[in-house]
């Protein structure tokens, strides 16, 4: 555990976070290098979502340090905005803007934040919609798309900001089973292109084929972190084994 290189893309040191009297994170250490894919799993309420929400400051951590691409997350608004530009986030509930079409959802942030002219933003949007294989849905409103299509639009929306890191917060949990694959396929392609990714998910097939590291969290702590082969076949902690036996049997 000693060699925490300064080259780490994301570095968490003894990060704590409480909601009232509930301690969601109890001193989490994690180092992720450029291009690494990390899958985070664990029972609900274990702190997985809280951890990645802290990485782009949707939640504010109470203690410890979080450094993203060389920028430490402090209360400085400038730093937070800088980090948010580097980090894309995909939500369980998609959170597409319902009053905007798919293409407009993609164009909004590039136009407002990057100040890109409308025409270029449209081209950028079409480029990423093609990457998630739904350019033909560009002018539909979210309510007119299926769940899988909506989540792919949401992924494309984050990619439009050209982030260096992508965070996924249970991206397939709200989807009907037949739509999960189309979203995972897009994520696998993204991984192949070398994106640094943190994915909170229970899709263990995805973890096996894509992850460099699988992290198991329970009770606000990282219980185990290991490459997929080791993680699935020779987990050290009893808690990990219990969790795996529950999740892999069905």
């Amino acid at each position, binding site marked *: 555990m000693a060699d925490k290189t300064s080259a780490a893309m994301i570095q968490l040191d003894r990060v704590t976070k409480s909601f009232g009297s509930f301690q969601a994170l109890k001193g989490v250490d994690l180092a992720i290098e450029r291009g690494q894919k990390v899958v985070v799993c664990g029972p609900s309420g274990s702190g997985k979502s809280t951890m990645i929400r802290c990485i782009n400051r949707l939640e504010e951590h109470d203690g410890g340090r979080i450094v993203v691409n060389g920028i430490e997350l402090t209360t400085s608004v400038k730093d937070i*905005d800088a980090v948010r530009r580097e980090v894309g*986030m995909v939500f369980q509930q998609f959170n597409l803007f319902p009053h905007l079409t798919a293409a407009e959802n993609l164009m909004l942030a590039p136009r407002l934040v990057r100040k890109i002219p409308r025409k270029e933003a449209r081209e950028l949007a079409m480029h990423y919609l093609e990457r998630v294989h739904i350019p033909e849905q560009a002018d539909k409103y979210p309510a007119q798309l299926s769940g899988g299509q909506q989540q792919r639009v949401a992924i494309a929306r984050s990619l439009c*900001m050209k982030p260096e890191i992508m965070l996924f917060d249970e991206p397939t949990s709200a989807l009907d089973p037949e739509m999960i694959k189309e979203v995972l396929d897009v994520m696998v392609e993204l991984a192949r292109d070398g994106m640094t990714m943190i994915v909170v998910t229970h899709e263990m097939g995805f973890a096996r084929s894509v992850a460099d590291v699988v992290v198991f969290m329970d009770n606000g702590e990282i219980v185990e972190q290991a490459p997929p082969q080791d993680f699935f076949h020779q987990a050290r902690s009893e808690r990990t084994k219990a969790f795996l036996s529950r999740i892999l049997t069905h």
Partner: protein
Amino acid sequence: MGVVVEWLNAFLWGALVILGVFFVALVLTVVWGLIGATAKLSNSTVARGIANAYTTALRGTPELLVLLIVYFGSAVTLTSLAKFVDPSVKFVHIPPFWAGSFAISLIVGAYATETFRGAFLGVDRGQIEAARSLGLSPFQTLFYVRLPQMWRLALPAFGNHMNSLIKDTALLSVIGVEEIMYTADRATTITNKPFTMYLVVAIIYLAFVSVIIKTVALLEIHANRYLARAR
């Protein structure tokens, strides 16, 4: 009905005055409503306290009384200020048109505060998180993500507020605004046909309200267009 025709011009002018008051008050109502809702949702105890006092007071006091307080209150204040500068001044007041528009907007603004507050809360929290995670500033998030979604939620109730606005203008002749109640009063003293004249007033208001109801219905269809599912 012949008598009405003679007074048609006067009624028409009165109706224009009402429209003027309506539009001025409408803009102010939106302003008070947004400020009030923002204050009620803020973390500041003071801001919340002031906003709560505002809505409680303005929703529990008769419209007529608010109008009298605003008009005569401002007149007394302005007069004493003016006397301070020039002792020979007798009476200074805000023109009734503006005092009336202001008073009506204060009243309806209290209701709009509650409507907008509900609409702000009605926009899903995840929308704000998504906007922030894309790097939008709080102001950009408000302007491009929250407001476009909340006006759809606010619209039905706000339609009622607009009807209140237009109907409250009937009080303004009390402070000397020359609107259609004033016209009807003048016409009555000359023709001695009060029922006919106030019936004309009622018809004019009914026309205004009908236009508002129709407009709001069309706006609702427009506002909800993106929610229609394709399948």
